[in-house]
């Protein structure tokens, strides 16, 4: 899909990108990562000709891009940047419609597409289409930046720290959402970031750059288990094993666990708990709201007296979270197991510390 061949960019005597070659296949997410000034943004901007390389060639779909008119090339490539760069004098809908309008789409088609995209990024079209940029939060603005990049349904997407300008919590939510959108759309994406966790969460392949050169280009698993040199080793840090856990979803580790409703009788609780050491307590919507320890149970007590209450969001993890999310939640709470919920916070089972440990060992063995 995209091929860079010996691309070099010099600014006077300074070499920003040095003999850089890279190939990204269709439908793959390639993350360019490295310390600031390593040339990753320059590389990205050469792909849509916002910067012209000093030497070397770049191919998109087999076509040498130096032979394509820059405006036409850019209209066919999605582009999202950290500062978003939404146009403040236009509504959200008009911002998203920019590229379709440049391409001369008909009005009804643009309106339909705008609505579809707002839904895709999880914003209510009725509420957001007519808003101005100044009325949006940072996270909303970045989602609209992504929607604008996707507007004309380009097969290729260039993203420069697209989730950079928001708080860590929002960032993680946007990343998770984007990973799910990507599973549906299967775009070819080149994404620039300096955040290794983001790279590991999103990438099919990671390209690590140092001083304009490509140091290592491989899957996150291999980069984490076999760093090519000292630079990569330092860059991925000493918590590589932990980072690898964020490549693994908790889905297949979720096990059924005993649970009772908050209005259950003590007999039902004792029945449910069986040989386990605790039972999760759910509210009427099946949301975990606490637990009861087996040791504390006696016949005269009521569920209300025995329950150790906890906030659903705090004690549980969602089923699309990663092992790392689950582990850090368990360590934070000091629990050996935590409940797993679906998107609507309904209880579906639990995941234990032992499962995470076993998974870690498995990963180690696979990449040893």
């Amino acid at each position, binding site marked *: 899909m995209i091929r860079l061949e010996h691309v070099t960019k010099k600014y006077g005597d300074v070499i920003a990108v040095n003999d850089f070659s890279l190939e990204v296949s269709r439908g793959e997410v390639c993350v360019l990562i490295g310390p600031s000034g390593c040339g990753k943004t320059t590389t990205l901007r050469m792909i*849509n000709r*916002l910067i012209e390389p000093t030497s070397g060639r770049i191919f998109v779909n087999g076509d040498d891009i130096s032979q394509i008119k820059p*405006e*036409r*090339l*850019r*209209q*066919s490539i999605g*582009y999202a*940047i950290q*500062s*978003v*760069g*939404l*146009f*403040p*004098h236009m509504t959200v809908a008009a911002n998203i419609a*920019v*590229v379709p309008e*440049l391409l001369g789409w008909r009005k009804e088609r643009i309106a339909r597409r705008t609505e579809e995209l707002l839904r895709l990024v999880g914003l209510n079209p009725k509420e957001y289409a007519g808003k*101005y*940029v*100044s*009325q949006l939060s940072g996270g909303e603005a970045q989602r609209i930046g992504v929607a*604008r990049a996707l507007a004309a349904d380009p097969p290729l997407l*260039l993203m420069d720290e697209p989730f950079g300008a928001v708080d860590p919590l929002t960032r993680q939510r946007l990343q998770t959402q984007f990973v799910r959108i990507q599973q549906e759309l299967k775009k070819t994406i080149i994404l620039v970031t300096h955040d290794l966790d983001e790279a590991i969460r999103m990438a099919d392949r990671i390209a690590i750059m140092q001083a304009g050169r490509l140091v290592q280009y491989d899957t996150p698993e291999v980069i984490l288990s076999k760093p090519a040199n000292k630079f990569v080793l330092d860059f991925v840090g000493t918590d590589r094993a932990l980072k690898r856990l964020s490549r693994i979803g908790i889905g297949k580790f979720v096990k059924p666990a005993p649970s009772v409703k908050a209005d259950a009788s003590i007999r039902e609780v004792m029945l449910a708990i069986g040989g386990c050491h605790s039972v999760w307590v759910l509210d009427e919507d099946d949301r975990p709201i606490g637990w009861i320890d087996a040791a504390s149970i006696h016949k005269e007590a009521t569920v209300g007296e025995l329950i150790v209450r906890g906030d659903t969001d705090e004690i549980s993890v969602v089923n699309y979270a990663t092992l790392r999310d689950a582990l850090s939640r368990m360590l934070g709470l000091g629990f050996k197991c935590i409940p797993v919920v679906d998107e609507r916070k309904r209880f579906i089972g639990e995941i234990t510390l032992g499962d995470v440990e076993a998974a870690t060992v498995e990963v180690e063995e696979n990449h040893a």
Partner: protein
Amino acid sequence: MLSPKVRHWALLAAFSAAFIVLLSNTGWWETMLRFLFTQETQVIYPSANLLVLMGEHLRLVLVSSAFTILIGVPLGTWVTRRSGQKFLPIVNGLTSIGQTFPPVAVLALAVPLFGFGLVPTVIALFLYGLLPVVRNTIAGLRAVPGDVLDAAYGLGMNRWQALFRIEIPLAARVILAGVRISVVINVGTAMIGAVIGAGGLGAPIIAGLVQFNTAYVIEGALPAALLAVLLDQVLASIEKSFAYSASERKS
């Protein structure tokens, strides 16, 4: 209920109408001026009535401002483009000279070349009003955020599309503020046109100064001041319609 915007424009239209009615009633002016200047025998400038003078004055202001805008905005735009960047200091310098050079001196120099009347006055006013328009055009275009422009080009706009769809709309408020300053200054400066026979509200003022008749001076100065205030309000309202952030739109 009418929207605040419609009400605002209706109010301005009503003021303009009242202004014209006021100008066309020479009798009212005579009564007022006679009350103020009891010892003068003649209180109304005899050569032309106020509506005619106002018409001449407006013509001077509008023609010179039209030239100022038609030349100033493209000039300011050009020197912010890559092709014109080299000329930025020259244009800045020349427009500053245009403003600091006294319009009376421009008239003195222009009369031998263009004769008396409208043409030299328009030239003097044009030069005098150029600076705020050019400066504000440059400032407005420069203030367009770099990331917004980067996005515009990155999405596939060419230079003209980026200029007309993004840069000019975003700079419009600042550019219009320059136009407003320029026009209001010109309402006052256009008085000098009377010195070389271009007419306008300067005519009764000059006559009043020559004949030591303060009533004539008031007859020219008061309508000019009102005209300046009215034009300022109209242009400010146009400017406001280019607000794009929530807080600006409310104000």
